[in-house]
Structure formats: C-alpha cells, structure tokens
C-alpha cells in the first residue's frame, strides 16, 4: 500500500513540476525588459545611450529571453516527439507516391526525432523498406532545416510572421527538391550496396507510454538540447550585441541590402560550407538585419548554414555517389536563393 502511494506521489510530482514552473516562467518572461532596465540602469548605474551600454543591455536582455523560450518549446516538442518514431514515420511513408509522399515526408521531418549523426542509418532504413528516394530526400532536407531551436529563435527575435514564413518556405523547398530528385530518377547514383542491405527488423514492442513518461521525455529533451546549445547562444548573442552596439545604422544596407542583387547567391555560397546550429547563427542574423541587411538575404544565409552543412554532405558520401550529392546540394541551394529573392521582393 505504502509502495503504491509512494509511486503515485512520484507520478503526480512529475505533473507538478511543469504546472508550477509555468507561471514563474511567464512572470519572468513578461517582465524581462523591466528587470533588465532595473539591473543595468538602477543597480549597476550605466549611462544610457552609449555604445557599451547598448551592447550590454542587448546581451543581458537577450540571453535569458532566448533561454526561456528555448526551454519551453523544447519541452513541448519533446513531448510531441515522443509520439513519433523513425519506425512509425517509415511505415507511413512506405510506397507513397511522389508529391503526396514528399509533402508527408517534409511534415514528418519536423516532428520525427532526428540527429544528423543518424542520417545514414535512417537513409538506409527508409530506402530498404521501400520509401522512394525523392521522398527520403524531402525528409532529410526538412528535418535539420526546420527544427525547434531555429523556430524558437526566429520567434523570439523576429516574431510570428517570420517564423511562419521560414517554416512554409522551408517546407516548400523540402517538398519541391525531393520531388525533383524523385522525378530525375537518380537511383543509379546511390551506392549499389545500399539496395542490397538487408535491414533487420526490430522486435522492440511499441508499448503504450504513460503520459508521465512523455513529460519525462520533455524534461530530458530540455536537459539534452539546452546543455548542448547554450554556449552557442551565448557566443551568438555576444557577437550580436557587439554589432548592435557598435556597427553604424545601415552599415549593411549596401552589402546585404535589397539593392545589392548579388547578395542572395553570395549569402548562400558563403553559408553552405559554414557549419553552425541555429542557436549560434540567429542572434548574428538579427543584428545584421537591424543594421540594414534585407530579410531575404539574411534568411537565405541562415537556411544555407543550417540546412546544407558540409559535414552532413560528407557523411552522405558513404551512401550516395558524388553526382547525386551535387544534384541534391544544387537543387536545395537554388531553392534557397529563390526564397531569398522572394522575401526581398515582398518586404
């Protein structure tokens, strides 16, 4: 009896943690600007409107704001992800026709747990079970590009509209690129051994998971992701703060502004070999934007950095011939450039 009630208490306390923490979170988040003002001007007594104060204010305000947002969203996404697994996704995508398959794969790419170090086993698992090549690619493009860390930062720094635009254009790129790769019938440029692999079948039963276990999954996700990206966020915001405080207004307008037509392809060319996660790149992007860079150019840069990374392409070489890799990178890069121009045109 005692054991049972103890166990029950433990289960309830798991619910309680998020329920109790949320009001605290909200209070802190909504008052962050006031708290920062209090700290910087009243407590430390820095003189307003100097470059240094501007930079410090930016840093002190942005770091907790981004970390708060990140914690909340990663927790929620962690719970959502516990409902999806690569096995289930693969089952849903098996034998799907082009286009419908591409749309589904891109959407599932957002919610299925994915880490670029698992890209190869996942690729093999998909192909082996009959998911078409183009559909597999839609998944592989959407999964890293549209991730919760990128969405949180975009929302925190630019607001709803930009998140939606980023998400919808990212999805479009994944759908269309995968569709084109499927249409081009590039299967012969996949290393031949891939099609000979006999993947084993897992007999881990998909048990019904209690909701408290999903909360634990959410908390674990927060621990894992926040401990991994906080340092990038700190560095990114520090660089952003420097640009914010010291770089003159409109400094970037000539270089990365609308009038410079070549800025979008240049940003993509620069972004592809660069490797960073969303956490490090977005605060910099925000500062660039503030100084006159145009949204399309900056978003294209960001998509290229996050979505097309050199290390991932090198890993893919194990299963794909060079021609297919170049085609893949080329199609996605062109997609990103088009998106960049569209944004520059609209705004």
């Amino acid at each position, binding site marked *: 009896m005692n054991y049972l009630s103890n166990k029950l208490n433990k289960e309830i306390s798991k619910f309680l943690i998020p329920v109790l923490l949320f009001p605290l979170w909200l209070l802190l988040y909504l008052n962050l600007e006031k708290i920062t003002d209090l700290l910087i001007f009243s407590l430390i007594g820095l003189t307003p409107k100097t470059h240094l104060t501007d930079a410090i204010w930016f840093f002190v305000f942005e770091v907790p704001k981004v970390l708060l947002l990140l914690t909340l969203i990663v927790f929620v996404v962690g719970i959502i992800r516990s409902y999806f697994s690569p096995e289930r996704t*693969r089952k849903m995508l098996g034998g799907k026709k082009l286009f419908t398959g591409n749309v589904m794969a891109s959407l599932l790419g957002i919610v299925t747990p994915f*880490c670029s170090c*698992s890209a*190869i*086993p996942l690729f*093999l698992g998909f192909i082996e079970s009959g998911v078409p090549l183009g559909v597999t690619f839609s998944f592989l493009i959407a999964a890293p590009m549209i991730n919760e860390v990128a969405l949180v930062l975009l929302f925190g720094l630019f607001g709803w509209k930009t998140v939606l635009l980023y998400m919808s254009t990212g999805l479009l790129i994944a759908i269309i690129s995968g569709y084109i790769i499927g249409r081009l019938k590039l299967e012969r440029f996949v290393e031949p*051994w891939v099609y000979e692999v006999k*993947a*084993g079948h897992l*007999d881990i039963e998909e048990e019904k998971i209690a909701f408290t276990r999903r909360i634990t999954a959410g908390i674990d996700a927060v621990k894992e992701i926040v401990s991994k990206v906080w340092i990038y966020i700190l560095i990114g915001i520090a660089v952003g703060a420097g640009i914010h405080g010291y770089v003159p207004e409109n400094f970037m307008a000539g270089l990365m502004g609308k009038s410079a037509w070549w800025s979008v392809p240049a940003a993509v060319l620069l972004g592809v070999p660069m490797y960073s996660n969303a956490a490090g790149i977005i605060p910099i992007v925000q500062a660039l934007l503030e100084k006159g860079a145009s949204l399309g150019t900056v978003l294209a840069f960001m998509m290229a950095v996050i979505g097309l990374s050199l290390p991932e392409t090198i890993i893919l070489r194990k299963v794909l011939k060079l021609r297919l890799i170049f085609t893949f990178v080329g199609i996605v890069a062109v997609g990103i450039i088009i998106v960049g121009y569209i944004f520059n045109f609209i705004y």
Partner: protein
Amino acid sequence: MVSVKILGTGCKKCQTLEAKVRELVASNSIDAVVEKVTDLQEIVGYGIMMTPGLVINEKVKSYGIIPKDEQITNWLKGN
C-alpha cells in the same frame, strides 16, 4: 558471459554510451564482452535507424537514447 554491442558511427552520444556501459560492467563486476560496432551494414542489420544502439546478447535493448544507469545495469544482469 554477456555479449554487449554498442552500435554507432562515432557521434558524441555513442561515445558517451560506450564509456558508460564499460564503467557499469566494471563497477558491477559483470562478466561481459563489450564491443563497439561501427560498420554501417552491420548497424542497419539490427534494424535501428537512430544511433547509438545498445545490443545485449544479440537483442536490441535501446536506440537513439542513452538509457538510465539503473536500466542498463538491469539489462546487463539479464533482467
């Protein structure tokens, strides 16, 4: 004797899991052979799509995560 395999191509999580398993084997003085599998075909042969995978006596116990110490010890002891 328990046969333990860690499946993974060398991501950080895979190394963490390997170190952890070796430590648990030693601290519980379990008679086990711990082996790291990096060959892709062999990894896929176990049917996992997320690394690291943990295989004990040829049965996949977990994949994509680093299980809790308690859980790993239980598996190692054959429960």
